[in-house]
């Protein structure tokens, strides 16, 4: 944990102070050298496995097939030229990475999801991105624009094989209620480097759910800042890393407006040799952000030997005038007492483990609250468990 009290810089320059965990951004690609892995924001990432996406890999013509449903009143379209350029940065994103700056300046087209003001849609927009070739390095820009007082759910569903750098920008209008789900259910050879940036309007409710289960390397940064008081952000994550997989989530909530709320709940499970997960949760409470409330939590369940779960919650507080700020992180194996309790009711050990893992994720799935995805998410957990948990010799559970 890092807490920095008021310092000289903030006293002099209240508006400009930024988190040391989140370097100042720039739209100019030349301001961003290719990362070497020693930078704070890159030190957990296996850059060598990213196929150059974080540096200077060529952004080739996309081979990913994209399709979607279009609820009435919503505009979803691939746009280019002037219109595409006008959508770059609608979340206020000023990239702090080379790939972020490159996506904004180099990618010719953009996939816009536009929900007009006051439109409330019950049916989720599901955008399918099906990767066809992990040998092609590509990049995409997806702006999701939600007008004032609109209400909508957008799901980005990534499957197949791809090597993708991506920027997703979310603009949540005043009073809007928005859920964005990004599902990374890639094939084993996929590499996905993605930055989600959201700006949350006055009194708006933003829910973001990151679900990462497939791919060789998945790194997602999910950032939020506010455009007025009263906004709230609920940042959820569910991930499952298998043998050799690297799944990394960074979270950055910038409380830059008063009376804003944020809540983060990320849960992950790991199984198999070399399964590696990283969770970095950064919350910055600026001087201006009086009366805010924030809580971040990350829990990891280590199912077998040979896994590594890194979990780093950070909180930087520049004002004491807040309602609440807290964080929690826990990484552990199966709880012997839980297993004993279930088994003492006749439930076999493997079934008991399955119940515990399902239970671990069930609360989160309920919080994500997208009915159309509930069953899919439960299946994902069940499928992951089928892979391994049934036949692992696990000394710690029975000794």
């Amino acid at each position, binding site marked *: 944990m890092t807490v920095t009290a008021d310092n000289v810089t903030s006293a002099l320059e209240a508006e400009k102070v930024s988190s040391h965990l989140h370097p100042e951004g720039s739209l100019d690609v030349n301001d961003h050298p290719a990362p070497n892995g020693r930078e704070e924001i890159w030190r957990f990432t296996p850059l060598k496995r990213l196929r150059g996406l974080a540096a200077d890999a060529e952004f080739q013509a996309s081979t990913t097939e994209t399709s979607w449903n279009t609820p009435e009143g919503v505009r979803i379209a691939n746009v280019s030229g002037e219109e595409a350029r006008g959508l770059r940065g609608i979340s206020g994103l000023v990239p702090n990475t080379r790939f972020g700056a490159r996506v904004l300046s180099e990618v010719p087209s953009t996939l816009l999801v536009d929900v007009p003001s006051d439109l409330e849609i019950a049916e989720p927009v599901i955008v399918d991105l099906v990767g066809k070739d992990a040998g092609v390095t590509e990049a995409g820009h997806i702006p999701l624009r939600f007008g004032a007082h609109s209400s909508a759910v957008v799901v980005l569903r990534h499957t197949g094989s791809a090597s993708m750098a991506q920027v997703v920008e979310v603009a949540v209008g005043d009073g809007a209620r928005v859920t964005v789900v990004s599902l990374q259910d890639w094939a084993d050879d996929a590499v996905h480097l993605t930055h989600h940036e959201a700006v949350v309007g006055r009194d708006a409710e933003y829910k973001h759910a990151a679900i990462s289960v497939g791919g060789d390397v998945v790194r997602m940064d999910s950032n939020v800042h506010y455009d007025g008081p009263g906004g709230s952000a609920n940042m959820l994550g569910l991930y499952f890393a298998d043998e050799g997989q690297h799944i990394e989530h960074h979270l950055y909530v910038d409380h830059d407006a008063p009376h804003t709320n944020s809540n983060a709940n990320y849960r992950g499970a790991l199984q198999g040799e070399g399964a590696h997960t990283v969770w970095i949760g950064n919350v910055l409470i600026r001087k201006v952000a009086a009366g805010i409330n924030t809580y971040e939590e990350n829990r990891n369940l280590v199912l077998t030997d040979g896994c590594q779960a890194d979990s780093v919650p950070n909180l930087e507080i520049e004002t004491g005038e807040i309602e609440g700020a807290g964080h929690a992180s826990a990484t552990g194996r199966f709880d012997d007492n839980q297993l004993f*309790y279930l088994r*003492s*009711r006749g439930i076999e050990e493997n079934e008991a483990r399955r*119940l515990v893992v399902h*239970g671990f994720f069930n609360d989160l799935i309920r919080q994500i609250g997208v009915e159309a995805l509930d069953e899919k998410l439960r299946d994902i957990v069940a499928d992951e468990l089928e892979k391994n948990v049934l036949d692992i010799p696990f000394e710690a559970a029975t000794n």
Partner: protein
Amino acid sequence: MSTLEIKDLHVSVKTEDGPKEILKGVTLTIKDGEIHAIMGPNGSGKSTLAYSIAGHPKYDVTGGTVTLDGEDVLAMSVDERARAGLFLAMQYPVEVPGVSVSNFLRTAKTAIDGEAPKLRTWVKDVNGTLEKLDLDASFSTRSVNEGFSGGEKKRHEIAQLELLDPKVAVLDETDSGLDIDALKVVSEGVNRFTEGADKGLLLITHYTRILRYIKPDFVHVFVNGRIADQGGPELADQLESEGYDKYVKAAV
């Protein structure tokens, strides 16, 4: 017909200073239709006896035997013991977040019976049992033991006892922490279970209070890892007035 037979049971736990013997030779036979009460002061090893019978991994059996109808219980895994017909109502039931009571009960029933219960009668059975234990029907949608009050946890244990219907049940201080109303409700549940006449019950308690509602056939005084005295229900009355002092002094 079922008989739980415990012979010269020795059990130790690991401590920082090496293994420590808690049970120092316990012999006890529970036949069906019999209710045995084990009473004793704190730290006498009562709960260790309960958990050892259930097979908690924390306890090492270093000697003796436990059999259920002649079958070697100690050779069975925890879940095998339950499927063989043993049940332990725990003093401190464990929270299992995200697993609903209804899912848990159905999974346990399926495991014990070897087949899924018939849906229609099962739902009726569950709701009826919960109702008799003064538990709201919404109780079954809650996560197992999470956020339950002390009384709800104990009533949930007894609901499991009734629904899983074992041959021999061990109740580990089920009465502790219950107010008098909850104690009555829980006792009625236990009495419904033992009505069957082919059931054995081992009731572990610190207080005589519950014995007003559940009538034991035998009372054993447990001190320092052994049975120090045994007799009929009158022994409980004697303990009520005299306490454990004379046994504790004798054991030192």
